[in-house]
């Protein structure tokens, strides 16, 4: 239903099921990048002030740290348990392979080395353009490394069924109609009664007024019936 407007990437697992991955967009990745920048700066200041006192040996170590910090900082964090740099972790993101598998070392290295090109001509210009052009928001480095930045968790639809007597659907319903009515009933409690009624009126044909009550309460009743509830069963569930 939502395929046309959603940017969800579907990955098939060896178990033969499809997993939905929600790619991270431009804005959230930008914020994650800025947070990482601040963290890197903090680490750099910390190391510099600690090693500055250590003399010549310290200078060497400092240059080594600069190299690691500029090239390998994201790689190290992406290969750890969370598959995300601290900035991405704070924003609830993680890096995956585009086929939904966990990130591999070469995938992480490639996507981070390619930052050099992504940052051209200035201010990550290439990265911004490719990310905005693609629905899955991958930059050049992601494309070469075969990786994808996605949200760690998807927001579960919040809500619950309001209390209502289960009503058997008066007319036969197609699977899509059943899904739509159930999804509406799940959300109805979060809407104002007027808005709920307005949306419910679209499906008024499925719940004739002969059944009594408002349209939305009738639809909730049908949804409860579709869930398997019957008259006389305890309604405590959900």
């Amino acid at each position, binding site marked *: 239903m939502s395929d046309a407007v959603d940017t969800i990437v579907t990955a098939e697992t060896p178990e033969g099921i499809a997993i939905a991955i929600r790619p991270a967009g431009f804005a959230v990745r930008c914020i994650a990048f800025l947070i990482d920048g601040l963290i890197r700066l903090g680490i750099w200041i910390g190391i510099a002030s600690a090693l500055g006192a250590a003399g010549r040996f310290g200078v060497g170590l400092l*240059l080594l740290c600069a*190299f690691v910090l500029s090239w390998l900082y994201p790689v190290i964090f992406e290969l750890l348990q969370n598959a995300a740099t601290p900035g991405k972790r704070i924003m609830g993101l993680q890096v995956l392979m585009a086929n939904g598998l966990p990130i591999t070392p070469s995938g992480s290295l490639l996507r981070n080395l*390619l930052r050099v*090109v992504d940052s051209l001509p200035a201010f990550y210009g290439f990265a911004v353009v490719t990310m905005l052009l693609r629905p899955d928001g991958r930059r050049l480095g992601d494309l*070469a490394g075969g990786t994808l930045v996605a949200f760690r968790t998807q927001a579960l639809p919040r809500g619950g069924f309001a209390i209502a007597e289960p009503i058997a659907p008066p007319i036969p319903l197609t699977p899509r109609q059943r899904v739509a009515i159930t999804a509406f009933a799940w959300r109805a409690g979060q809407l104002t009664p007027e808005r709920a009624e307005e949306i419910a009126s679209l499906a008024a044909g499925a719940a004739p007024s002969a059944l009594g009550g408002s349209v939305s309460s009738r639809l909730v009743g049908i949804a409860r019936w579709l869930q398997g509830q019957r008259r006389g069963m305890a309604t405590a569930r959900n």
Partner: protein
Amino acid sequence: MTPLEFEAEHESAWTELEGLLRVTERERGAERFLALYRASCEHLALAQARDFPEHVVARLSQLTASAHQIIYRQSDFGLQRIGRALLQTFPAMVRAHRAYVAAAAALFMLPALAMGLATYLQPDLILSLVDPATASQYEHMYNPKAEAIGRVRDAASDWAMFGFYIGNNIGIAFQCYVTGVLLGLGSLFFLASNGVIIGAVAGYVTAKGYGGTFFPFVATHSAFELTAIVLSGAAGMRIGRAVLLPGRLPRFASLQAAARDTSCIVFGSAAMLLIAAVLEAFWSSAAWVAPAAKYSCATTCWALVILFFLRRPHAA
């Protein structure tokens, strides 16, 4: 089975799996976890096929996806794997790309030789590349009277230079590689420009009569350093070709395939540059080592490097 019955029957398994996702790997216990994962896959497929409510499908989908991430995580980053990549895949990939390597070597060495000869005959030419202050620095670096060779200031310690070489050289190699994405132009530019500068410095200090310190200095570590730069440039050219002439693949798929093939070459080059940095900082710069010793060490190193790429470890 109605959605309510379905939820009631499996709720305990889902809650248990959700709990296992939060604990550490050791507390998890593989057998139970795998069984629960398989069950959740089955439940997800059922729920999707039967158009169960969105909130049930979404919950199962998220549960399965999180468990999937843990189960398929590559846990084998062991030494054996790295060793195999560096000792077998790396030289094999270099051999597989020998045409690119030859082109990259030519692109690097021809400008270097031409510029070297030119600055040797006409030392002022170096000023077309760098300003006079830098030129006099080069002169100072390879002055036989210096305590340590190849340093701008004698004060810079071996360790400081080691850190500098690592950052600078590996950075150049990475740059040679990744800028290949720009239709290969970046790799071509960095190979040629590095060749020109190295050639110019060599020609200049030789013309000034410091060849006796310069060549023993560079001979050893260049076996690793120059080879690694040429190899990453070659890998970058392969990337550029994949973008420019993708053949039968879509352009992005072609880029991805080329990146996968050549990534090993870049990691190998980085390892070689690590060796080069150690040699350059602690061995090449030591003024007390006789040039003859440095030359014989250099010969060994070059022979080892060439052998490393020519030998074929037991057919894989």
